[in-house]
């Protein structure tokens, strides 16, 4: 339920809407690149929202910065580098791979591999499990034979 409240609290502060008409670049190719870049950049005063989704003033400023850099002829990487230089890696919604972030990126794959090994161990055993009973059991001893005979006899 706070689920909802938190979502809401964030929206109360920034009534939705995001990209405003006056920001949009005339060149659709550049605008498209701007939109794609915006989706990966965090609105610094919001909760895990990209600047593309946010209506905060700060997000708007950042969207304009991105567009200015693109118009100035920066490549996508240069724009990102420019923004990260100013605001730090915090601004990236997909953090760069680093030693500190290794667990973030490798956690899933490593668990999948471990789980895969566990799965193989589980499914390998039946071959051995079924192999074992195939070994002919030792023949019955005299004693057992007698017992068996008496048991069968009782059954009649």
């Amino acid at each position, binding site marked *: 339920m706070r689920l909802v409240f938190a979502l*809401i609290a964030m929206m109360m502060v920034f009534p939705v809407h995001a990209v405003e008409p006056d920001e949009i670049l005339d060149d659709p190719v550049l605008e498209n690149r701007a939109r794609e870049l915006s989706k990966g950049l965090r609105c610094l005063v919001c909760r895990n929202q990209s600047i593309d989704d946010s209506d905060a003033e700060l997000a708007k400023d950042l969207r304009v910065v991105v567009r200015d850099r693109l118009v100035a002829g920066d490549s996508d990487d240069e724009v990102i580098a420019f923004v990260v230089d100013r605001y730090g890696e915090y601004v990236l919604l997909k953090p760069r791979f680093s030693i500190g*972030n290794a667990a973030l990126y490798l956690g899933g794959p490593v668990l999948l591999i471990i789980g895969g090994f566990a799965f193989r161990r589980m499914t390998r055993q039946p071959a051995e499990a079924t192999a074992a009973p195939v070994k002919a059991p030792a023949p019955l001893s005299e004693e057992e034979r007698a017992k068996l005979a008496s048991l069968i006899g009782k059954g009649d």
Partner: protein
Amino acid sequence: MINEIGHFALILAFAVSIAQSVIPMWGAHKGYAEPMRFAEPAAITAFLLVGLSFAALTHGFLNSDFSLRVVAANSHSLKPLLYKISGVWGNHEGSMLLWVLILTLFGGLVAALGKAIPPELKARTLAVQGMVGVAFLAFILFTSNPFDRLIVPPEDGSGLNPLLQDPGLAFHPPFLYLGYVGLSMPFSFAVAALIEGRVDAGWARWVRPWTLLAWSGLTIGIALGSYWAYYELGWGGWWFWDPVENASFMPWLVATALLHSVIVVEKRGTLQSWTILLAIFGFSLSLVGTFIVRSGIITSVHAFANDPERGVFILGMLGAAIGGSLILYTWRAPKLKNDTVFAVMSRESALVMNNLLMSVSCAVVFIGTLYPLMVELATNGESKISVGAPFFDLAFAPLMVLVLIVMPIGTALPWKRGDLPKAMARIWPAVLIAFCIGAVFAMLRWGGPILAPFAIMLSFWAIFGVLADLGERVKLGKAPARESARRLANLPRSVWGQAIAHIGLGATAFGVAAITAWESEDIRTANAGDMIPISTYEIRFDGVTTEPGPNFRADIGRFTIFENGEIVGKISSEKRFYPVQNAHTTEAGIRSSLIEDVYVSLGEKQENGSWAVRSYIKPYANWIWLGALIMTLGGLLSLSDRRHRVGAPTRAKKQKMVAAE
């Protein structure tokens, strides 16, 4: 007076729950029948008392009794009736009360309907359920009392947050809670089984319906929240990988895994300790979902300090529940029978594969959600990182691809020993159909993202794979049509439920792939009469009028949709202003269909008198929620299978025996 009764009933419920958690547990330990039987009237009484308390609070909201602090802070005399009711749980205190109401309802149901549960298991399960109740009731009574009074009541209330004044959000929390709290039942059964040291097919049969119920509630609750975001946020976003969303998604993933592993326990008698572990994790994540998000700790460590009393209480509860059950697990689980052996290609190994993929998906979401917090804590706040949608999309999509590939094969495999060629022989038409549909989409949407047709192919592989298997089960085309129809009608409801839920997942996947790949968008300022060309449509802006609502004022923008020069529909989008809270909300105008949504939202008025207008074409958007609805339907259908019904297992067996005689 009524408020005092409500408050008093809550205190009584607290006392009853303490007795419920102690006496039956002791009875089961000693083997005394009477104390064990005490669990039943206690659980039912607790439910009735909490129900009385909830009714009293509802009375306060309906009659706008502003002497109650929560009513004054969250309601308003002019609010429509629906939102006076939903206002009961639209705040912290009331939502906690709803939580306990559902908790005690489930306890009461087990007590009243679970006649066939072995007495020890039942006593212990209800005792554990009672302990959860004690913790929550204490939390409510000591830190979040909804019956807190104001000495000087205000003239009118501050009103409910306008964003909550929406039918979708009015029912989002109850469904979500149904899921969260529903997972307390498998948890209680799991802890009881650990204490008992025994897990058998009967146990699995008791756990399965509760897991199904919880899962269905979570599915519909999450879908409601997502649909609400879609039409209310003004640009049609439907999933944000926001921590609060993730908090509800993680229990769903675990519940999905539990749903499948419990089948293996029931049918093959293996995988017990893993299933117990899932049951513990499922409820733990529900608690985390309820609390950690509430305390704001995920957003920032500092938010926690704002309310240290509740915070410490929450941490204590989480520690006791999660830590306690895990310690019990490490102590007792090794005693459970665990000789898991099965063939690589078999139904059970496919179910294990499901468990692997769901658990890893959950772990990925968990790590991603908590990583920023971990980094902040580890570096003492010096280094901060963000983990958002782009990361989750990247990490989650491959796992879902695997799920979709494996799912139809798994359902086509027989128990114990199967082989891939045989399974594929059952469902090969699905490959063909999926390929054709993918190819058609590739041609229709030429120039779109290259991966999109493959994603579409996968979704339809999932859908038709399940259908093909169903067809094979009833010998469609191999036996006379009448025979097939008879077999179809005779399929157990759990088989229907499984097929329908799996089709639902395929439908959701299709919607997600399509909207992600082929959405079109137009953002501009427009004057009345302007035409906005988008995709195959033209949208005419017909101007804005201002009209009063029940407790708000709305600017209503009207639009006419043209296709090939002909009018195909009219929609309107509102910007609402709620004077009580001094807040705005938007209501998008949507022309909805299964093919695509035409989505228009009215933005700000510009200085020159024109309006910002956002128009979108959202292809196959409704499939996302339709799929979730189908999944829920599948869950409920399976739940209605008499073998799963609470109290049914032994009764069904008896009937069969009678029939055999």
